[in-house]
């Protein structure tokens, strides 16, 4: 999650939105309280993040499960 943000805060996972499988859930956070830096827009990562209330649907990939690292998707 090194690239998370660049302004992301109050990160939490509401227990109501954790799926029955225990690994699919919704990540809740706020982000990007200032709109730019040196007149350039802040990067937004993951896409769609913004000031206010952002929910991202995520899946935690188990160590033994299949999956690929970022860059190969």
């Amino acid at each position: 999650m090194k690239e998370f943000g660049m302004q992301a805060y109050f990160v939490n996972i509401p227990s109501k939105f954790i799926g029955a499988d225990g690994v699919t859930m919704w990540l809740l956070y706020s982000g990007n309280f200032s709109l730019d830096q040196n007149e350039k827009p802040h990067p937004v990562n993951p896409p769609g993040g913004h000031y206010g209330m952002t929910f991202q649907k995520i899946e935690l990939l188990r160590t033994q499960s299949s999956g690929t690292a970022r860059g190969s998707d």
Partner: protein
Amino acid sequence: MNPELMNRTTTICLLSALFFVTAYQAQITGENRSKAWTDPEVARQEDPDFTIQGEYGSAGAGASLGVQVVALGNGRFDAYLLQDGLPGLGWTREKSRTVWKGLRDGEKVIFTSADKKVAATLLGGTLRLAGEDGKHSTLPRIERTSPTLGAKPPKDAVVLFDGSSAEQWENGKSEKGFLLATGCTSKQRFGDYTLHLEFRTPYKPTARGQQRGNSGLYHSGRWETQILDSFGLDGNDNECGGIYSISKPRLNMCLPPLAWQTYDVEFTAAKFDPSGKRAAWPRITVRLNGVSVHEDLELAKDFTTSAPITKPLDGPEGPLFLQDHGNPVVFRNIWIVPGKLAAHLPGAEPQTADLKPEIFRFDPFTWPSEIPQDCPFERSGAFRAIRFLGVKSGFRYGDTWYPSWAENDILYSPWTDGKTKRLDGYTDWSQSWVDPVHITTGQGVIIGDDPLKLVAYSIGLDRKRTGSTAIGKSSPP
């Protein structure tokens, strides 16, 4: 010439010269003091000082310095240096406030500090400050507008002036869509109410004190919230935002002259027992340009200075009154919501969008499970990565939501900063960047089982909590 005659002649000449000079100065002074611009475009064309006066710094919180430049006429200025930013964005009364004197030379203004050193220059809308280390810093000119400017009247509001007619006012007169400060009184009387009013003071750079764009808004015809061009000044009870002779504003939130400004007022009328004896004084909460300057203040006297109603307080209701102080102050967009106040807190504004979440989709991707070197927790061995599944939901209001799941299946959450819509058609506005005593924390709910179909809204503001998320503090329990 006879020496006595020469002395008399000299005396007469000196007296005549003195009379002429005095008369000339009086004429000049009188002309200057009466000069009032009421149109910003005309002021811009006729007086180069008009576009120099104003605010310099950042329009957001977190600045180290804000500067308010006040025009004094004929190329002279005062610059007020405010620690931690402009009022409402960082500066509070306990922080430093320094004044520099400025003099315009052509298009450039040179400011000198108390020790007569050149401290800053202003040219082309940029204030350039000399630092102790020989380096310079710059502050751009900004123009702030009230967040409640243009607020539309709710469906249960009484519109007192919308630009079309002054018929709601005794002695009211409208001109060019503005209500004039003619000493007019609302025809209706009110008890409890929430009021929105917009006003504009003239640009009178050579005038001083109470002669500089004076008017007033009287509640129940008795208690005055002052209207005055007091941009940059101390913020006393007889200046803009003050409750005349009762309380000075928490901050001087007055904007420069000829800027439209807002009063958002929550007024709780005096209470009387069945025998007619007063049981409680009225109370008032005032926002000037969107920032709280009085919070639930008791108005513990029958009336304030120059009130149109001066008999002892004998009832809960009274009219609004807009004072004529001989200055061309104008008003627009005046509406009032009578009745109980809870549903119409200051800052509330008509809802313009529904409560559906904003959905965004993107290509899924995976981030490896990595933790910072200084992370106090061990990296979990159970998970190797987090995959973002390419769908986002949420709302662009409030901030810092962190909900708890209640027995009734609703998520309850505090939120702080920004505006969050409410179910009743209004919007709550929370601020954390004001001083620790006056911040508010929003309380909200998130309803629904599917994050793509959630309904989220504010259920009110908590005004009793102190502390500031902006500076990482919280109040003791």
